[in-house]
């Protein structure tokens, strides 16, 4: 039966070959098969944005994508953002400097979303930032510090890691 499939997928620059159930979500694959638990699951139906990862350079909801659909793809998650020597990605640095997180649950999704946005819009208005982040929910900070962080990171060069 076509209920299991072997997939090849690169996650955070490491290539994996795994056999997965066809109904496994990409989020569960990343968290439970690859044990990279930085990608978080909130609503599991596409509303909260916590599970956002980058697939082939585009942000996607990993809860709304099947692992088998990622066959052949390159994925970047929060774990892949910093340099190998531990240097933070500029957007991580901006979140740190602006106190843009409290519990941190939503942060991985915000970071991946913000990186894609800033790559396409290096000089955004605050309104554009708010629109771009509207699909990510945060229940701690009230968003102001998150918007400040993204505005402060605008214009800095985005390394090609997501």
């Amino acid at each position, binding site marked *: *039966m*076509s*209920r299991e*499939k072997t997939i090849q997928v690169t996650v955070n620059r490491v290539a994996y070959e795994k056999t997965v*159930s*066809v*109904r*496994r*979500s990409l989020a*569960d694959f990343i968290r*439970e098969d690859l044990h990279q638990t930085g990608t978080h699951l909130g*609503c*599991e*139906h*596409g*509303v909260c*944005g916590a599970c*956002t990862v980058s697939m082939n350079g*585009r*942000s*996607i*909801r990993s*809860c*709304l*994508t*099947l692992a*088998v*659909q990622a*066959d052949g793809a390159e994925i970047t998650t929060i774990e892949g953002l910093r340099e190998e020597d531990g240097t933070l990605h500029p957007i991580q640095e901006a979140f740190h400097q602006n106190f843009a997180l409290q519990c941190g649950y939503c942060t991985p999704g915000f970071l991946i*979303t913000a990186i*894609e*946005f800033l790559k396409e819009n290096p000089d955004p208005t605050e309104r554009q930032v*708010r*629109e*771009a982040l*509207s*699909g*990510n929910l945060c229940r701690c900070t009230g968003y102001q510090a998150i918007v400040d962080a993204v505005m402060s990171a605008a214009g800095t060069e985005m390394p090609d890691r997501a």
Partner: protein
Amino acid sequence: MVRPSGQLSPQATPGRMASRRRQAGCKLKPPWFDYHAPESLEAALELLDNAGYDGRVLAGGQSLMPMLNMRIVNPSVLVDINRIEGLDTLEAGPDQLRVGALVRHADLLRDPAIREGWPLLAEATTQVAHPTIRNRGTVCGSVSHNDPAAEHPGILVTHGGSVVIASTKGQRKVPAEAFFDGMMSTTLDPGEMVIELRYPRPPRGAGHGFVEFARRLGDFAIAGAAVLLTVENGVCETARLTIIGMGDGPLRARAAEELMAGSALTQQNSGEIFTAAAQDVMAALDPADDVHASASYRRHLAGVMTQRALEAALARVGDQ
């Protein structure tokens, strides 16, 4: 994305379902299905034909996956069309725009030819969910899904567009209005799939307006209106007006269209005519109360959205 609330019984919240799954030691959300990722349209149609009522097309998955995760739908065969070449056609021709089954919402927004030739479509697409959802979700998928609160069905109707449908028996083309068939329902038969949408190029100098009201940015609209308007020498030649967010799907406001077509329409008298058009729209609507809005609030909003969309369209008439 399905509605954050409203379609599920209070007993079946995602949180409770997740906790039941954890208790059962089960980490898989959707029901079982056979998964196929064919590389040709012929193979996909063959699979859909064999599956009949039990088959579903998986394109962007932004509505289908939540429905699977919540077990609202239970197809035994999923046909993932993402690996089929040639379904991502996005072609802005002199007479029409062709949108293939794998064109994502975000693809429309990145194409300057669409902003220029089909600005109503481009404007409405900016209101479809959020950027990340727009990266995956497809226009054909939204039309096939026919959520009454979605933008794309109404925009296709406003353009007088059509839907190209394929099956193992061949292809057929259906006008948009004959395609939509009640809430989340279309005239698509088992074994068929939508392979392309066609949007005729709006007349030269047509003004467009799209306004919707949602509680938060990116939410489904409680009410919205889409307008294409042509005015020649102070007389309204053609008016197309579609209401979204209520009823069973996109609702073409024919009475209001007929009221406007042929009547004198200038900045001076537009207020009166647009108010009359909004009243026609409100009289034609019979929305139901739901958790998002009461029927009377929805009807009121539809009138306001109609007026605003008409004003926006008139202000743009003649812009090239």
